[in-house]
């Protein structure tokens, strides 16, 4: 098996798995019914994408593990999601800000992945890109609506942006594992997506009357697995509890 390809697929699948779980935490408690259903739909889209990425990862690994095994039986240090997606939901505005910051990256990444030299990856990306186009439309519109809403909603969105912006940079850091996959034509170089991301984000923030904090500081350690934030462990205790307590349980 190719170690870089396996890691690359974990990075893709763990981003969608952890964000999907986070968004799913709103199910039944969102501010209005319409948003509740929309968030649940989005969570399910992300979990669906996870099934495809992690099934392929398990196949590449070739050790007899399944997508479910990878999702439910790994511990925090084996996860390869960026730190942004494991951050807590906070208020509704913070959830939507996190969503926008990820969706914009996710769309650019998937658009590039539709040209992957690996046909299986290109096929998954082609399916996911339609879902994520809609996710971005919804999250960017909501960020604009709340940023350009009342002074209360604007200040909450600015607080969310201040908090989450330092987690955006990690998505564009290219490491040796990325480079190996980039050279094989499998994935785009993450650093090359940055300019388009910044342009798009700037437009949204302008319409939303928001400004990202000064400075280029970026938290890191999620996609390499070197150091996740404390929040991932707590998330896993909820997400994996059933399989840990009742191994192999099915419905």
């Amino acid at each position, binding site marked *: 098996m190719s170690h870089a390809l396996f890691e690359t697929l974990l990075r893709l699948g763990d981003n969608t798995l952890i964000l999907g779980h986070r968004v799913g935490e709103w199910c039944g408690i969102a501010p209005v019914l319409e948003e509740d259903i*929309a968030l649940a*739909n989005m969570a399910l889209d992300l979990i669906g994408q996870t099934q495809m990425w992690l099934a392929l990862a398990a196949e590449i690994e070739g050790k007899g593990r399944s997508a479910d095994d990878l999702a439910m039986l790994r511990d925090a240090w084996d996860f390869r999601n960026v730190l942004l997606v494991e951050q807590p939901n906070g208020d509704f505005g913070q959830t939507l800000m996190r969503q926008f910051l990820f969706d914009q990256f996710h769309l650019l990444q998937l658009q590039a992945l539709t040209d992957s030299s690996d046909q299986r990856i290109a096929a998954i990306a082609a399916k996911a890109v339609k879902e994520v186009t809609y996710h971005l439309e919804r999250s960017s519109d909501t960020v604009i609506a709340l940023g350009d809403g009342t002074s209360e909603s604007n200040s909450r969105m600015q607080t969310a942006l201040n908090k989450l912006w330092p987690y955006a940079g990690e998505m564009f850091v290219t490491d040796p594992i990325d480079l190996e996959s980039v050279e094989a034509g499998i994935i785009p170089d993450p650093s090359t997506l940055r300019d388009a991301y910044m342009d798009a984000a700037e437009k949204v923030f302008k319409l939303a009357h928001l400004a990202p904090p000064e400075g280029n500081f970026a938290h890191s350690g999620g996609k390499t697995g070197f150091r996740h934030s404390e929040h991932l462990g707590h998330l896993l205790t909820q997400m994996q509890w059933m399989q840990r307590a009742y191994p192999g349980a099915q419905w």
Partner: protein
Amino acid sequence: MTGFSKQWPLWEVFIRGQHGLSHRHVGSLHAVDAESAMKNARDVYTRRNEGVSIWVVEAAQITASSPSDKGPLYEPSESKVYRHPTFFEIPEEVGAM
């Protein structure tokens, strides 16, 4: 910002199904404006591949007939059976109509 109602306006949703010819009323939802009503309709009413086209109409824009006018509006047609096309012989060659 003043003058905001706490409740978003109500919208009626009409969807044209995969094989349907006309849009059918499927329900209603709340949304701040037409664009978000469209998105909400997509999320609430087309999750199971129900439709190929969505209309949203602000409920306040719909003029409805009043139940108390039922008599004058509908009853006169009850006794006018000749308005139904059942008094014609349809030639067999025509087949099902």
